[in-house]
């Protein structure tokens, strides 16, 4: 951040159904930065801050995007969902459980973004070309915006297959 960034008056974000007031933010701050550094929601990960890795994936009005490429102030009216909305401390979501069962988590840095992308894939399932019951190419294409340096994706694909099966 440079000194030429202007601070912005307080605004409100709706994250996971709850209002959060954001004050003293700079005008160009990304949604990712605001979530992590101002709202204590560190689930979305920050790695590249240029849309390449997908570790910051969130839903804005039901659409999967990179939080690092959203100017937070421009989504003050939107429904924002982060990985913190998946499952609870008592029970994991179907997708989270599938990742655990498939051993699809190694260092875990990519996992929150992948959970969001896989949840989105399943929620949109019927719109995917040739998606039923489980189409590996369609899945690879749907996850092409999420980089993982550890797993080699094999177990991630296995987790998707399990999650698709379990949510049927």
């Amino acid at each position, binding site marked *: 951040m440079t000194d030429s960034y202007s601070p912005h008056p307080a605004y409100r974000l709706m994250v996971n159904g709850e209002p959060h007031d954001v004050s003293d933010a700079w005008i*160009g701050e*990304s949604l990712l930065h605001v979530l992590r550094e101002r709202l204590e929601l560190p689930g979305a990960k920050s790695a590249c801050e240029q*849309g390449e890795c*997908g570790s910051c994936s969130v839903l804005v009005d039901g659409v999967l*995007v990179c939080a690092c*490429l959203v*100017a937070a102030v*421009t989504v003050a009216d939107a429904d924002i969902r982060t990985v913190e909305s998946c499952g609870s401390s008592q029970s994991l979501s179907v997708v989270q459980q599938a990742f655990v069962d498939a051993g699809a988590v190694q260092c875990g840095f990519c996992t929150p973004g992948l959970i969001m992308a896989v949840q989105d894939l399943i929620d949109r399932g019927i719109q995917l070309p040739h998606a039923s019951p489980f189409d590996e190419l369609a899945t690879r294409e749907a996850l*092409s*915006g999420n980089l993982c340096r550890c797993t080699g994706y094999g177990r991630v694909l296995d987790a998707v297959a399990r999650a698709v099966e379990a949510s049927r």
Partner: protein
Amino acid sequence: MIAAAPLSLADALRAIADDPFATVIAGGTDLMVQINAGRRPVTSLVSLRNVAELKGWSTESGNLRIGAGCSYSELERPDFAAIMPALAQAARTVGSPQIRNAGTIGGNLATASPAGDTLPVLVALDAQLEIASSSATRSIAISDFLVGPKQTDLRQGELIVAISVPVLRGAQEFLKVGTRNAMVISVASVAVLADLDAQGVRIGLGTVGPTVLRGARAEAWTRSNIDWDSNRVVGNLDEFVALVRSDSHPIDDHRSTKRYRSHAIGICARRALQRVFP
């Protein structure tokens, strides 16, 4: 004004007229990369996210009008692909699902990268851009709009509202070469569109010049080297490839070399023509 989220085009145009230093943001996929890296100071933002007039597309009497705020995801969908397959295919090659959900065709035009993936298709179609300011609207041909690498004819206080292209009868193809399948900026790209009614082929060449180029010599070749009764190529494709290369003006840069780009554009164009006229 610090940040504005107008709901109408008139309000958006007024906001940027009132604040000449405002930064216009649509999907943010080009702009936020700059802002995150501290390369783009911002004092105020006007978000196009909710501007109704920029959304959606429609067809009317042989023309397709695409709102500047259409995302790549919208252009990928089967209903759009049925009308303009080359643009749908170009949209599908952009970045990743997350980028395609956010990035807009208007942003691709305003950024005006020679590697912008929608541009070869739009140049091949002689797209007309609808541009508005708070005091006037104008229409401009895409070839006049794209004046250089990342340089456009867009003036202070103006927004791209929509893009109009003719709907053609005939097959279409868009191909791009990069280092891998997903998330890649092209090192060469080509759009080949048959126009069966005009008995011609329209060709747009990306990433092989300061702006996206029209393959004029190669197009001229197709007029006499395609049998328009059977829709088959009858001429020697090596000639076509040589003409595509002579229509291109690639350079060496950090992504590729002049030599490779020239090689790749010829191969892509040949392959695309063969798919359009199998």
